[in-house]
């Protein structure tokens, strides 16, 4: 039994009884789709973000840094990528986070694994993927995202690029042990509630617009219409999707509903996944901010390694799923 069934009943009832649109009409399908998806996504967002925030309140980055500074090479990359999932990535914390890791002796490769996983595998993207594509695709996204993060970190670690990090990152060690304030359960709940609310406030217009356009495409664009331009047999679709994804970071919440509709109309799934990964993992504003602590050459290496990983994943899924 589908747990979203009651929502489907509600949107059926709303479309046919309140709006009085006959179920055979295209418009009925569009509105039904829109109401169902919007309610489902917002419910999922509230539940998932709240849960992740509670977990996160036990694992602040300062604690993660301590965990990662002990670990051996490959274990470190894996752990860093996993921990990156639950950590939110606000570009305003990118620089202190990077410096904090490097100064605590976390290897550069491990730090990069974290920098890749943290924005790419985030709860908003996962909720949207789960809600619109189903759990299989969401899981596929998590696993391939983890693998890209782990491998990118290992590759960057092997390139010995420590000299491309600004020198001051290695000096200026903070003094002594850090005493983080203890949080009570009440504070954790409040933190989680505020965080959830903040995120919803930030993403709701994008989701409404994204789902709205998605619903329209769902109802009016012929199935497989896009296959002739972006089907699995079009070699250029994946790299093109990645390039388009780079400047779109802030709108990730609106883009996923949109691409879910495009997939339905014939864009190959590997291409879609690559596009979403590029949107979340490669962000132009983040690169600009990271320029404060690393040379442009390192940012380019970082972007290329991750970009190649994403393109490879895209081709791989287009090939497997076809």
């Amino acid at each position, binding site marked *: 039994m589908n747990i979203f069934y009651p929502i489907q009943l509600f949107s059926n009832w709303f479309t046919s009884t309140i709006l009085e649109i006959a179920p055979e009409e295209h418009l009925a399908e569009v509105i039904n789709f829109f109401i169902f998806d919007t309610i489902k996504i917002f419910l999922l967002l509230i539940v998932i973000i709240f849960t992740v925030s509670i977990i996160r309140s036990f694992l602040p980055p*300062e604690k993660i840094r301590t965990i990662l500074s002990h670990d051996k090479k490959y274990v470190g990359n894996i752990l860093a990528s996993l921990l990156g999932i639950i950590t939110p990535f606000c570009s*305003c*914390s990118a620089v*202190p986070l990077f410096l904090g890791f490097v100064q605590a002796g976390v290897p550069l490769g491990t730090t990069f694994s974290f920098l890749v996983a943290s924005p790419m595998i985030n709860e908003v993207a996962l909720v949207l993927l789960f809600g619109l594509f189903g759990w299989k695709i969401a899981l596929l996204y998590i696993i391939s995202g983890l693998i890209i993060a782990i491998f990118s970190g290992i590759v960057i670690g092997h390139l010995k690029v420590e000299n491309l990090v600004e020198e001051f990152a290695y000096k*200026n060690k*903070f003094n002594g042990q*850090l005493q983080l304030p203890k949080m009570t359960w009440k504070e954790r709940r409040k933190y989680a509630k505020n*965080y959830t609310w903040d995120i919803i406030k930030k993403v709701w217009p994008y989701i409404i617009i994204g789902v709205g356009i998605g619903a329209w495409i769902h109802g009016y664009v012929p199935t497989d219409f896009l296959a002739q331009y972006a089907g699995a047999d079009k070699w250029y679709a994946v790299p093109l999707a990645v390039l388009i994804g780079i400047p779109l970071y802030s709108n990730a919440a609106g883009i996923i509903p949109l691409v879910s509709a495009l997939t339905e109309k014939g864009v190959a799934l590997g291409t879609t996944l690559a596009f979403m990964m590029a949107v979340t993992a490669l962000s132009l504003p983040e690169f600009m901010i990271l320029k*404060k602590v690393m040379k442009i050459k390192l940012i380019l290496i970082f972007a290329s390694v991750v970009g190649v990983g994403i393109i490879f994943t895209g081709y791989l899924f287009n090939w497997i799923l076809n």
Partner: protein
Amino acid sequence: MNIKLLDTGCPNCQKLEENVKKAIAELKMEASVEKITDIEEIVSYGAMSMPTLVIGEKIMTSGRIPDVEELKAIFSK
């Protein structure tokens, strides 16, 4: 009281600053608010998530925005 805000210039940092100023005004207390924006100095406190509130070199909150009521409680301690 000497209050320091570690601030990378993000929207959340501004919101914390507003809340801190409100809390100070409501308590009618004497306090100086200093914004630390130099990245090397921010990192020297060991904090990694923004915004961070520091009183007397001690981190009080980090990576979240305490509301005015919570700040008042922190300041009155």
